């Protein structure tokens, strides 16, 4: 199949690239739309799951990589569970998210990549996620100070936010793990 892939992209068609990266067999999709019927975000996002597969099959790189859908997907696994051909849509979407970041095509309408970076940065430094620190860092980076600020007093009163992170040994080992992953994957993050 020839595709309408953008000229600056490598020679592999999008479907091949995503199949290799995710292990999902996207050519098997016959558009039954069972994925979309059960998808919790299909009604409110820009591209429905069955349309996303079709666009990948057609090589519509720009539309797919800059979609809101790939970031609004909740990874609930319902589509994969119900697919009659066992197409692993969540794995496909994870691969699209990584490709979207690598290609600089992330929609400005999502804060998920920023959140992910802060989250993984915390794991790298502390070993665990310290929720209060995570929320503060996210709000600083996105300027969303007032969203949920009203919930802080109740959460603190009810002991839902530990003030200090727990100390976890093995910082050097964690740093090595992240460094090696970066090395293997080309330090894309």
């Amino acid at each position, binding site marked *: 199949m020839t595709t309408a892939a953008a000229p600056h992209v490598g020679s592999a068609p999008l479907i091949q690239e995503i199949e290799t*990266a995710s292990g999902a067999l996207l050519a098997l999709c016959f558009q039954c739309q069972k994925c979309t019927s059960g998808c*919790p*975000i299909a009604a*409110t996002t820009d591209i429905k799951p069955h349309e996303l597969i079709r666009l990948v099959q057609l090589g519509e790189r720009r539309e797919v990589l800059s979609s809101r859908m790939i970031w*609004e997907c*909740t*990874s*609930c*696994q*319902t589509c*994969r*569970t119900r697919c009659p051909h066992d197409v692993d849509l969540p794995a496909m979407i*994870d*691969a699209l*998210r*990584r490709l979207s*970041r690598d290609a600089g095509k992330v929609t400005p309408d*999502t*804060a*998920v990549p920023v*959140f*992910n*970076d802060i*989250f*993984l940065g915390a*794991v790298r430094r502390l*070993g*665990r*996620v*310290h*929720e*209060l620190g995570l*929320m503060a860092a*996210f709000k600083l980076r996105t300027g969303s100070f007032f*969203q*949920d600020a009203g*919930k802080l007093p*109740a*959460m603190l*009163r*009810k*002991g*839902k*936010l*530990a003030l200090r992170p*727990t100390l*976890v*040994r*093995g910082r050097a080992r*964690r740093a*090595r*793990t*992240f460094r*090696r*992953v970066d090395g*293997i*994957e080309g330090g894309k*993050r």
Partner: protein
Amino acid sequence: MSYVFFPGCSLDSTARGYRLSTEAVARALGLDLPELPDWTCCGSTAAHQSSSLLAVALPAQNLLAASGKTMAVACAACYSRLKVANHEIANAPATREWVAGVLGADYDGSTPVQHLLEIIRDEVGLDEIGKRVRAPLTGLRVACYYGCLLVRPPDVVRFDDPENPMSLDQVVAATGAEPVEWPYKTECCGASHSITKVAIVERLSHDILAMARDAGADCIVTACPLCQLNLDLRQKDIEAHFGERLGLPVLFFTQLLGLALGLKPSALGLDSLIVDPLPMLAKRGLAPRPGARPVVAAKARK
């Protein structure tokens, strides 16, 4: 079976009540759950969205440290990531090799992973729970909410039916309470969009709460920290946004079990819930046993 406990990050903060009630119930049931020393975060959604290798390496590091024991997991999301890591390492030799390169040690994917719900139902057993119930929750109508990752994808977790799971219903029934029949057991609450896109969580969590209410439930019981947080912490905003009364306490299943075992509300962290469950329990004639410190008193003292 010899267990090692993997609590997950939430149990130290937003799901403090889950940790307290798990520890109290484990003691009461004679389950030994020593915590895995220096465990690290499973990587959660952030890892699998960012790096397929990191998403397997982070859980594998913990699984390797737990070798020889069964890992007992409290959080449904950690449970999923640990199970997926085992599955990928056991089924893809290339992945196993990559992970060995990253960790500096080979891991074969063989450390068994079980969720607390699985352990309580299958290792402790429903008969044993029935025998140990001191304060049966008779008349309490409970919507058992499983969420996504405890049951999906079924070929990886291999635990319960992905469309109509019953394990939680069975444990709840063993406490004397009545699980309601309802169709939203495994719908998604919106998960980590709680921070990145609240509107998604409010819509999805509203649908779950409203369905539980319409099914006649007095409360919801869950086995996932993020589901609990979304349904409980956001409930007031959801009521305001949709102009509806919900008023449904959302408990961890270990908290409900602990109440039936006759444990004090304070020992189960009931005071860390946003929607106070005590008025609902009192209405059903299930006020905690005499001598227990009521949560309302703690509030009044403040």
